[in-house]
């Protein structure tokens, strides 16, 4: 069992997804049960499915000074950083602690692979076309390298790329660096954008739903892919006593299969118990869990059983993939933001799309939104390769 951890303050956070730009757009959509999915209009020959696309990325070029990083994923990152005054909060932290004392840990599954795909569509005599022959774009660290340069950071800068758990695990990496004194604060988050690799890739695995995804519905037909950017600033609690807390995190491996979860949710349960132990919490103290809930047959079956066997009927649980789609490497930070919104505004989002609940789901499921006090909120994130993470957040205790 891990030792209990000293909570950290989440002194600022923001999210941009198909639901809109910034926290207010997201809060309104969740409270109104208004999803952001649309028929797939991404690319030249789109698959017949639904996607969670962020509006206006095409019209938001990077500033000239950062033009060498130009690509859809970095545009979305830059757009995301502008919301909720987050960029200013990050810059203030950098000024306060020093550029070398703020760690940057970002999660992404495919980073700027969309730019590599584009280069292959327009090859110039077998070579990358001139405008895309930029080495910094054709590697999975492009997002983090871009944000580090855009913010002038000089401290640790790491990309975590564990598929759909990526931007949940960044909280764990950041906490360790702060605890060990390698950094005084950390900028964490994640960005993933729609691209051919994931649309056609998940399609090849027969995991993409032809209709809007329906997490935990008995007739669910698979996932809807989405894109998103989200960021959070972690500091010691003394620096932000009124901010919500990162209370714990858990990480574990299924050791089962590359693309299907462990049938008993073993790794997911280990990650959950790891998070509860670090946060010194009993399952019964948890008010809300934002589920991974992709709407794939297997994930939802395994996760519903996990919730049913660990939590009392009073704990509320829902997937928000019906609102945003599955934003892959960004899902961890998007759903961490939703857990934080639940704490701050006393609202449990309803499980959009679960019109006919799968009988495997217990009384914990919030099929529609509920206004109630939320003091402790968890977020589950599970990825390919059996990579599981769970985050625990709480209200400020001061």
């Amino acid at each position: 069992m891990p030792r209990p951890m000293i909570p950290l303050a989440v002194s600022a956070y923001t999210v941009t997804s198909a639901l809109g730009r910034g926290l207010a757009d997201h809060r309104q959509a969740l409270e109104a049960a208004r999803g952001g999915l649309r028929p797939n209009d991404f690319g030249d020959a789109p698959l017949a499915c639904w996607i969670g696309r962020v509006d206006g990325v095409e019209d938001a070029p990077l500033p000239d000074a950062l033009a060498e990083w130009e690509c859809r994923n970095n545009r979305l990152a830059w757009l995301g950083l502008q919301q909720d005054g987050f960029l200013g909060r990050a810059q203030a932290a950098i000024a306060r602690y020093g550029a070398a004392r703020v760690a940057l840990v970002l999660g992404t599954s495919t980073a700027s692979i969309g730019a590599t795909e584009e280069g292959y569509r327009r090859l110039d005599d077998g070579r990358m076309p001139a405008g895309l022959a930029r080495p910094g774009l054709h590697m999975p660290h492009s997002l983090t390298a871009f944000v580090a340069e855009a913010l002038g950071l000089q401290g640790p800068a790491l990309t975590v790329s564990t598929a759909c758990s990526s931007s949940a695990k960044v909280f764990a990496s950041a906490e360790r660096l702060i605890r060990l004194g390698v950094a005084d604060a950390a900028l964490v988050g994640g960005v993933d954008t729609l691209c051919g690799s994931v649309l056609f890739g998940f399609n090849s695995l027969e995991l993409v739903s032809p209709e809007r995804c329906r997490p935990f519905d008995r007739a669910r037909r698979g996932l809807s892919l989405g894109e998103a950017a989200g960021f959070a600033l972690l500091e010691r609690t003394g620096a932000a006593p009124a901010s919500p807390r990162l209370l714990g995190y858990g990480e574990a491996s299924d050791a089962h299969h590359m693309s299907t979860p462990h049938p008993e949710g073993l790794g997911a349960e280990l990650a959950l118990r790891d998070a509860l132990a670090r946060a010194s919490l009993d399952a019964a103290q948890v008010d809300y869990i934002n589920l991974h809930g992709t709407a794939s047959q297997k994930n939802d079956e395994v996760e519903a059983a996990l919730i049913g066997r660990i939590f009392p009927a009073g704990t509320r649980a829902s997937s928000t993939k019906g609102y945003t789609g599955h934003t892959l490497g960004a899902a961890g930070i998007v759903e961490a933001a939703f857990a934080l919104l639940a704490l701050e505004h006393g609202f449990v989002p309803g499980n959009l799309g679960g019109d006919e609940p799968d009988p495997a789901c217990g009384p914990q499921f919030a099929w529609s939104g509920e206004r109630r006090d939320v003091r402790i909120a968890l977020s589950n994130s599970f990825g390919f390769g059996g990579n599981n993470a769970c985050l625990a957040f709480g209200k400020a205790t001061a």
Partner: protein
Amino acid sequence: MSELRIYVEGIGVWSPQLADFAALRSWLQGTPSPAPAARPPAATLPANERRRAPESVLLAIEVAGQAVAMSGRDAATLACVFGSAFGDLSITDYMCQTLAQTPAELSPTRFHNSVHNAPAGYWTIATGCHAPSSAVCAWHDTVGAGLLEAAAMALADERPVLFVCGDVAAAGPLAPITGSAQAFGCAFVVTPEVSPRSIAALSLRTVPQHGGMPRGRSALPAAWYEGNATANAALPLLAVLAGHNRHCQMAAAGKLGLEIVMENVA
């Protein structure tokens, strides 16, 4: 600046010229050893997985298996961090080519093998490991950033950690872009406490660093460094562990260096 102290219990190395750490030691002493088999043996994988697994996975599992065997620890209990600057570049080439021509024919196996954490996935499945596993990258700084992540995990959670880093040769249009010309992988079992299995103590200190480090003199061919992002950063550390220097410095991020000093285990 902060200092982290870890102990090394196991080391793995593989490249088309190097079968293991012992072979690297011979080269460093000026005695080139015979080249290994064309593909990393990756004996930890079951035979059917070994046939299906991409090169990046075989490479990572080969060096991970070597390091864990040297440490004498049970792989199932080790937390692990897998780093790679570029991931599996031949799968990226396949995916982008297929997407440009016949996207609906994309192979589901190649797609799930394309995730950056494929080596971590195959490793944890093959070894029955339920411990935390991660997959990281930081471009040319992946070895330093990944070592910092592994050391932080070892010290923060007081547990041994397997750190693996590898890159394979690029195919197609990505070859001139990435400069990845040949495979190289290495692995280290690091622990927070000294043990009878400790080979070396390493003190890691974060320091400001601007620009790349000069390579210095080496008995190894320059092409080994130049043709692989992992090798370029890891070979100086491996030379330290082989007793050829007391210290080295590698980048851990764009403006952050990791100064590494080896001390004998008391």
